[in-house]
């Protein structure tokens, strides 16, 4: 939720405010992008492609949920990509080398992610490391461990039912992984908007000292937020493994910047205290639609980079401008 001053028209504006939760700016960007691609490519505007985009943003989206919370409390999590890789490799290793049943390995994979988050959280609260450094350290360690598990080899050959989680679209619509993504978004959205615990995260990000004096256990919340972010990286890992039908130690390389970009495009502030799941969803979709559309149009990869950079800058400019106007 943004914490803008509402003009005296606030009461009249209440309806759109609730409907869009202050994400009008990025939303306009997303709509413009979709319109542009609809003209540029005949393949863009179709249910099938919309489902493809959802497929493609599932991993980014799940990571972005955790990142939204982390950014709201004024932190940052650079380790998500590496933690994803470590969770993925643990899952594969446990199933393959330790012979555990795959469902159990999946759960343990998620727990691996949570454990990484726990370490980050403890480094931040107890060793008082800046979040940037703590998660950068975990980023390096987790990537190393992910590689050490199998000496850098990927793990292939999961059972069919596992890949089907990502590939079979039930009733012609959502695959299991997309469903998980959507459900997680809704749960997180409700949590951040309507639960006291969720609201407390905004207070911590706004000013941790104020939050502490108001009786909030800032340390516990901080640690838990990083644990959730780690666990979500674990969920993303399972999703990605299903999608790729393999576990790869190089998975998620560099995805942390994409994730942070999605959250900030969605209106969150890296200073903390501001952000919303609705905004993050739009940010994630902007990145997803951009990549998908450029591929459909057949833009060369180098030129894609230029366009992506320009569009990100434009989208956020829209957002700040529209806020200013208010």
């Amino acid at each position: 939720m943004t914490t803008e001053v509402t003009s005296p028209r606030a009461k009249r504006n209440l309806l759109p405010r609730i409907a869009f939760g202050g994400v009008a700016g990025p939303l306009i960007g997303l709509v413009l992008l979709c319109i542009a691609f609809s003209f540029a490519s005949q393949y863009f505007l179709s249910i099938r492609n919309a489902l493809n985009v959802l497929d493609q943003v599932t991993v980014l989206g799940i990571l972005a949920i955790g990142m939204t919370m982390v950014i709201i409390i004024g932190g940052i999590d650079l380790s998500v990509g590496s933690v994803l890789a470590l969770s993925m490799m643990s899952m594969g290793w446990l199933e393959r080398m330790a012979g555990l049943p795959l469902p159990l390995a999946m759960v343990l994979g998620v727990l691996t992610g949570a454990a990484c988050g726990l370490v980050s959280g403890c480094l931040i609260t107890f060793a008082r490391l800046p979040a940037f450094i703590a998660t950068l350290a975990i980023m390096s360690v987790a990537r190393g461990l992910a590689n050490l598990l199998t000496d850098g080899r990927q793990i292939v050959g999961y059972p069919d039912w596992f890949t089907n989680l990502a590939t079979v679209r039930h009733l012609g619509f959502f695959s299991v992984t997309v469903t998980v993504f959507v459900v997680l978004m809704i749960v997180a959205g409700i949590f951040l908007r309507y639960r006291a615990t969720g609201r407390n995260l905004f207070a911590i990000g706004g000013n941790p000292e104020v939050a502490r004096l108001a009786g909030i256990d800032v340390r516990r919340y901080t640690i838990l937020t990083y644990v959730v972010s780690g666990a979500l990286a674990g969920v993303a890992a399972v999703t990605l493994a299903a999608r790729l039908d393999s576990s790869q130690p190089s998975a998620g390389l560099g995805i942390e910047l994409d994730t942070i970009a999605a959250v900030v495009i969605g209106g969150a502030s890296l200073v903390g205290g501001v952000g919303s799941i609705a905004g993050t969803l739009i940010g994630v979709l902007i990145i997803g639609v951009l990549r998908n559309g450029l591929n459909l149009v057949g833009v060369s990869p180098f030129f894609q980079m230029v366009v992506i950079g320009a569009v990100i800058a434009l989208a956020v400019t829209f957002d700040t401008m529209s806020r200013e106007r208010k």
Partner: protein
Amino acid sequence: GTVRAQAEDMTIGLAVANLQADFFNQIKQSVEKEGKEKGVTVVTVDAGGDSATQVSQIQDLITRNVDALIYIPAGATAASVPVEAAKKAKIPVVAVDRNPPDAPADTFIATDSVAAAKTLGDWVCKQSGGKGKLAEIQGQIGTTPQIDRDKGFSEAMKDCPGIEEVAKQASNQWMQDEGFNIAQAMIQRNPEISIFWGQADALALGAAQAAKVGNLGDVIVVGFDGDVAGLEAVKSGTLAATMTQQTQLMGRLALDSAIKLAKGEEVPAMQLQDATLTTKDNVEPFLKDHP
């Protein structure tokens, strides 16, 4: 370094381009395994794809007085600086996969990518009956393997006019997820695609997965490298064929050459290896014992 007669007390430096790529990792493992058998100390460094890092790492290996250097260059084309630095320190260099054009190493070990890609292209032509719509997912633009594989495959396609190339797009990192997304977009633009040519097994695997999701039915997906995942996929029929590079052999050969050079023996300047066209019929032995 000083010339030594015994392999036992030798230290060989191994500078790998990027261990996140399975192909390089296979070679690394082979070199290390061979090193253990021969009692040679192998010191491995990984540049993570960055040539600047690699230059620093090789500087460190030289400081460490290695007896010979196995150099798998990072970056699009091989940098000559490490070779020159090693030569200055009188350390012999074995280049693998790519060779700096302006300062060639003492010996160069690689797969003949052009020839291999042509073999693969010819097989595709035969397999498809000389007809079909081809989609090509290239590797990282500008890298030697990308250029060579492009060249070899398109030579084969020249002799196969029935196959029409309908899509061609490059990836940034040779990665499976990229292959998947690019292929998915290609399928949307051209639902009649019948052949996918991924310039690495990872790209081909991504394309195969996209074809499966897109219910494309009968498509021929071929890759290159013959890494473990690729071979498994060939066995299960996900990939129709791949070109198996002899990574184990190349690793062994690299170490042997390095030892020989350190002992002051002669080694041929160029040691090009064949890649084996691998299909369901001949994949089994490769899976058991990678060449």
